[in-house]
């Protein structure tokens, strides 16, 4: 599903943000990516979203080589990759329903599909009752659920979560992680970048620990390893 072969990314002269990483993630896996600030986690996510080009090495996702992908093919590729962020990135002037429907509208789904899929996805994340609420009327945990619904509504094969619990209290963080686990159990490959030691240790998934741009540890059912 995801293959990185000796991938490096350097922003300027000096230490590269990602340094000759090789990595394989199977379809349907749940992977935590942990590490200190500046260890290269977010750069890795951006490389997988094709927001950044690697300086060297090859990235293959779903059989598509990202290095050689033409610019006009990028939107279609991204439709198969859901993304959630620490700061939710919701449209503040639109309600829950519209935020989720937006993801379908931008890629041209017809209204009848939107009317069916959006309520389904909101039920999945437990927000069916709050579809009319604006983001400011929701708690942090609820806003992250909306962001998750938006990432999932187009049924991506891969879900990338960049610090999804970074702005949430422990209770909400656990709920979001539980939701990610459920999504993974439905067949979506999930990669979660996090600092949350307790959650990583609780969920017992594959843990990739990054340090100064390289993979320091990669363990099945691993634990959070401090720097």
């Amino acid at each position: 599903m995801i293959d990185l072969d000796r991938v490096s990314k350097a922003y300027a002269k000096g230490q590269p943000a990602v340094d000759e990483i090789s990595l394989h993630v199977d379809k349907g896996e749940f992977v935590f990516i942990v590490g200190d600030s500046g260890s290269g986690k977010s750069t890795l996510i951006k490389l997988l979203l094709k927001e950044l080009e690697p300086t060297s090495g090859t990235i293959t996702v779903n059989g598509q080589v990202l290095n050689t992908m033409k610019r006009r093919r990028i939107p279609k590729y991204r439709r198969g990759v859901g993304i959630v962020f620490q700061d939710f990135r919701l449209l503040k002037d639109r309600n829950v329903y519209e935020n989720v429907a937006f993801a379908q509208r931008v890629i041209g789904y017809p209204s009848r599909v939107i009317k069916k899929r959006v309520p389904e996805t909101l039920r999945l994340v437990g927000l069916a009752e709050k579809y009319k609420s604006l983001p400011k009327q929701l708690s942090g945990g609820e806003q992250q659920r909306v962001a998750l619904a938006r990432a999932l509504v187009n049924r991506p094969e891969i879900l990338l979560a960049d610090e999804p619990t970074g702005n949430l209290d422990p209770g909400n963080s656990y709920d979001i992680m539980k939701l990610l686990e459920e999504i993974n159990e439905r067949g979506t490959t999930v990669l979660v970048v996090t600092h949350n030691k307790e959650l990583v240790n609780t969920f017992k998934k594959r843990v990739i620990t990054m340090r100064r741009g390289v993979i320091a540890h990669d363990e099945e059912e691993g634990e959070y390893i401090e720097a």
Partner: protein
Amino acid sequence: MFSLASIATMAACIFLFGLFFSLVWNFTSIVKGAEEGVGVTVFFEADIEQAKIDEIGDAIKARPEVKEVKFVSADEAWDEFKSDYFGNKAEGLEEGFKDDNPLANSASYEVYVNNIEDQAGLVSYIETLDGVRDISKSDVAAKTLSTVNTLIGYVAVAIILILLVVSIFLISNTVSIAISVRKSEISIMKLIGATDLFVRGPFILEGVIIGIIGAAIPLGGLFFVYEKACTYILTKFSVLASFINPVPRGQIFEILIPVGLVLGVGIGLVGSIITVRKHLRV
């Protein structure tokens, strides 16, 4: 708010363009009218035969720059002279000059050219023709009109180019502001997988709409004001009325309206495309 400011500035630019367009056209019409009245007169050597005169006439008519050639016989020249200089009092002269035309050797061709710029070349050619005694021409009038015409052309092009650049810059600025206001929405669109066209389309459309509205307002205004302005100018400055005959509104606006709208849309399109290409790479 920014769109309103942009529409207002665009409207001012298109208004100036329209105003200038109308002025240029009217002045060109005045120049053209004056050009048509400026010709050269070709006189022949004394006792020349009519066949030779006809030959000269044919040679002149064969020139491509010649618009019209009019033969004026000695009698016609004398009649015109009497009419021009003595008017109704010419009756007494007829008695005195009966059977004695003082302009007996003044038969001539009046030659008019299509473009006043070609007159000097034509004169040089006629001078080489056998049997031509003299050529009377209005060099000063021809050169002045030609120069004014060219000058107006240059000034018009310069002003229109400046206005174009200013308008494109303003549209670009407005679209940049619209992009920065919707930055977060755009970044989400890109990450979700929106195509270039989907992300850029609304901004390009915004530029085009600004262009259309910004062009339609001044064009409408000019359309309704044009005839009133012409009447006012000719009434206020009655001395102009003798040689200015304003171009009819329909004639000007059947060209100005489509040109103005295309210009507005074009400016909107160019300004917005430049900006989205710069700021919105997926």
